[in-house]
């Protein structure tokens, strides 16, 4: 591609931002990692292609979920399965950079098609981001370096020894995409009050809708951590667009982003989402970054390794026949993928419709279990309306931040109950009882249906003597929870009050 007049002399800052000339190393890295991150989940779906995407299964288009009817044609298995195989091959060809633009173009169309076709089990926000990135890779020159195409071009001797340079606008669009994604996500969070009270993330971390979340449950029970991380994540999401193009801000924003996505894996069990986002982050890699890394790689400790890989590449190049046109090879590979996918899917025989034993039987159900489910009229147990009940002395953002079992006279105890919505308007009480379960104090409050928690403040005054007590939570005249605490001695404040009286 020859530089246009606009590319030759971008006079404005905006022009330089979009049309500066660079070797697309960053986009080449996106080309290598994104199809891998997006392709693995699609490859894992291959045994269920018939069920998810064909007329012989149960696809639900996202258009139907928006009540717009089935806009896309659903193909019969005989067509959809080979097409699916072609999509997988195109993703693979994109990774190695073989007939890159054609492969990426086909991969983008087919990946988007199959995603839209199964709005329940395939399409999700990570596949939307992947579709955007595949589209932007298609219009970029991501295949001009670190690819089979570049290698073949170099071998033919038609290009310079220096890597080619192009306008950076495709990389800029990827960068802007992430700025929009994070800014939009911050708007979502700002519009969700429960995100800033920690309730939303707590319940997400306690869900098992994604993969294992090794520390999600532990973090879910720490309200201060949830609150602080909620504010930090929104601040980062808003700042991303303003700092990521500044030399000093770039590493900070991308580092924070990598940490954010890593934590979504640990706390929410998201695997594919972080992988796709982080593969998109490579668009922020500039030509200068690669030059710096290359200098490091050609330094003494790495030199033998580099020589070894160069030798291996030249051997491989010698082994590849030069006479076969790449277009023919690519077309043959597409045909092999289509035939191979069809054959593999037929052999898998998902529904076992070609087996000698015939169709599989519907699974009989235990009658008692079925009737329990069908006849269940149990009202919600009173204690299931509550998430938890804790006592402590301090709050952060109206959430209890410490749990204590020892108090001194003069301390103000905060008894907090969190409720599971939806619940009705309730009258909730707290009782202070001694170790003989004799009630000393009783106080209550209305908790309307929109409230997620109620706080009770109780000053441990001189009515109590040192000893063991309980703070009891009651609702609908039922004991919900009991927290034991001990009153040890008079606090300094109480002593001061006594002495001044």
């Amino acid at each position, binding site marked *: 591609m020859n530089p246009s007049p606009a590319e030759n002399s971008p006079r404005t800052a905006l022009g330089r931002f979009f049309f500066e000339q660079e070797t697309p190393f960053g986009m080449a890295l996106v080309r290598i990692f994104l199809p891998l991150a997006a392709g693995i989940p699609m490859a894992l779906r291959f045994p269920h292609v018939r069920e998810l995407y064909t007329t012989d299964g149960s696809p639900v288009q*996202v258009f139907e979920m928006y009540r717009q009817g089935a806009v896309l044609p659903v193909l019969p298995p005989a067509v959809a399965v080979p097409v699916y195989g072609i999509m997988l091959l195109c993703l693979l060809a994109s990774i190695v950079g073989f007939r890159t633009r054609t492969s990426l173009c086909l991969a983008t169309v087919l990946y988007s098609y199959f995603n839209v076709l199964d709005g329940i089990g395939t399409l999700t926000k990570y596949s939307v981001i992947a579709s955007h990135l595949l589209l932007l890779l298609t219009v970029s020159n991501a295949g001009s370096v670190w690819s089979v195409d570049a290698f073949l071009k170099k071998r033919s001797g038609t290009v310079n020894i220096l890597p080619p340079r192009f306008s950076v606008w495709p990389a800029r669009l990827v960068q802007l995409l992430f700025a929009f994604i994070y800014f939009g996500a911050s708007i979502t969070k700002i519009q969700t009050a429960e995100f800033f009270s920690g309730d939303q993330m707590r319940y997400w971390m306690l869900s098992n809708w994604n993969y294992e979340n090794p520390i999600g449950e532990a973090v879910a029970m720490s309200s201060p951590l949830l609150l602080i991380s909620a504010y930090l994540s929104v601040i980062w999401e808003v700042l991303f667009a303003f700092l990521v193009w500044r030399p000093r801000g770039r590493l900070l924003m991308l580092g924070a982003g990598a940490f954010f996505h890593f934590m979504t894996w640990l706390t929410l069990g998201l695997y594919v989402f972080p992988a796709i986002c982080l593969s998109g982050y490579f668009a922020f890699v500039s030509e200068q970054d690669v030059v710096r890394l290359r200098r490091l790689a050609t330094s003494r400790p790495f030199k033998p390794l580099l020589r070894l890989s160069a030798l291996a590449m030249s051997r491989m190049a010698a082994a590849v026949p030069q006479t076969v046109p790449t277009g023919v090879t690519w077309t043959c590979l597409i045909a092999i993928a289509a035939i191979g996918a069809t054959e593999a899917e037929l052999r898998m025989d998902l529904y076992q419709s070609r087996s000698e034993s015939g169709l599989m039987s*519907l699974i009989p159900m235990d009658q008692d279990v079925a009737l329990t489910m069908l006849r269940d009229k149990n009202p919600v147990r009173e204690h299931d309306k509550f998430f938890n009940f804790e006592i402590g002395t301090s709050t952060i953002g109206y959430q209890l931040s410490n749990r204590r079992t020892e108090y001194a006279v003069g301390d103000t105890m905060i008894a907090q109950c969190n409720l599971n919505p939806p619940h009705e308007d309730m009258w909730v009480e707290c009782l202070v009882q001694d170790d003989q379960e004799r009630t000393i104090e009783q106080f209550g409050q209305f908790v309307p249906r929109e409230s997620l928690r109620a706080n009770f403040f109780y000053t441990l005054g001189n009515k109590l003597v040192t000893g063991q007590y309980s703070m009891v939570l009651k609702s609908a005249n039922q004991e919900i929870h009991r927290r034991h605490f001990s009153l040890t001695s008079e606090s300094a404040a109480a002593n001061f009050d006594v002495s001044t009286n």
Partner: protein
Amino acid sequence: MTRLKSVLVLGFIAAYLSALSFGTVAHALKVGLCGNTLSYYVVWDMFCGWTAWDARTHLIAEGASGQYYDVREPWGEFHPFGHLARIHYDNTNDLLPRHIHNVLRHTAHEPIDRVFTIEEVWPKQYNLPPGLYDEHFGRPNDKMSYYHLRAVFRDDGSLMNIYPDWHAKQKLQAVYDNPRLRRQSANATSLFSTLYNPSEARAGSTLNTSMGSGLSTN
């Protein structure tokens, strides 16, 4: 790059950034989003919803003999985003009828009279691992699931009856548990006028005659 190519590039950049801007503005101001499938591609509303109750979907088929069957794929469930079957991610209930039809047409079974869709819910605190549950609650994990009839289908997946979901039912009960509202709703009368028709009046006719709508025995 030719002039045409430059124009195409500029056009692509402008169109792409306009689409992203539209998504952000529309999402922020809540305009122009409803019913627009393509907005899903430009709106970044990750984790916009949440619930305090975990939920699963059960499909129970009742055979002509009275035997109940689990309408689950005998060839193996597909788990799209974790360890749950695809049917559990169907929060819009669009998959239910097709799933029923697909499983029943690809399995051997006696004639099926109807298929019940049951919603199972339980509070999420019971999902805590035993150690953490003990540390934070200090009592046995007495998890109890609630089962709620959501819909009834025929064996071809066509709908027979549908009921509010469990969350909606709880909210409706909370609202209805108000004597003043109950009294007002009981006293209110819905009116479908058969005596006065504005379009007839505009045409000058004062007769209350049937114009072909409704039941006619002639």
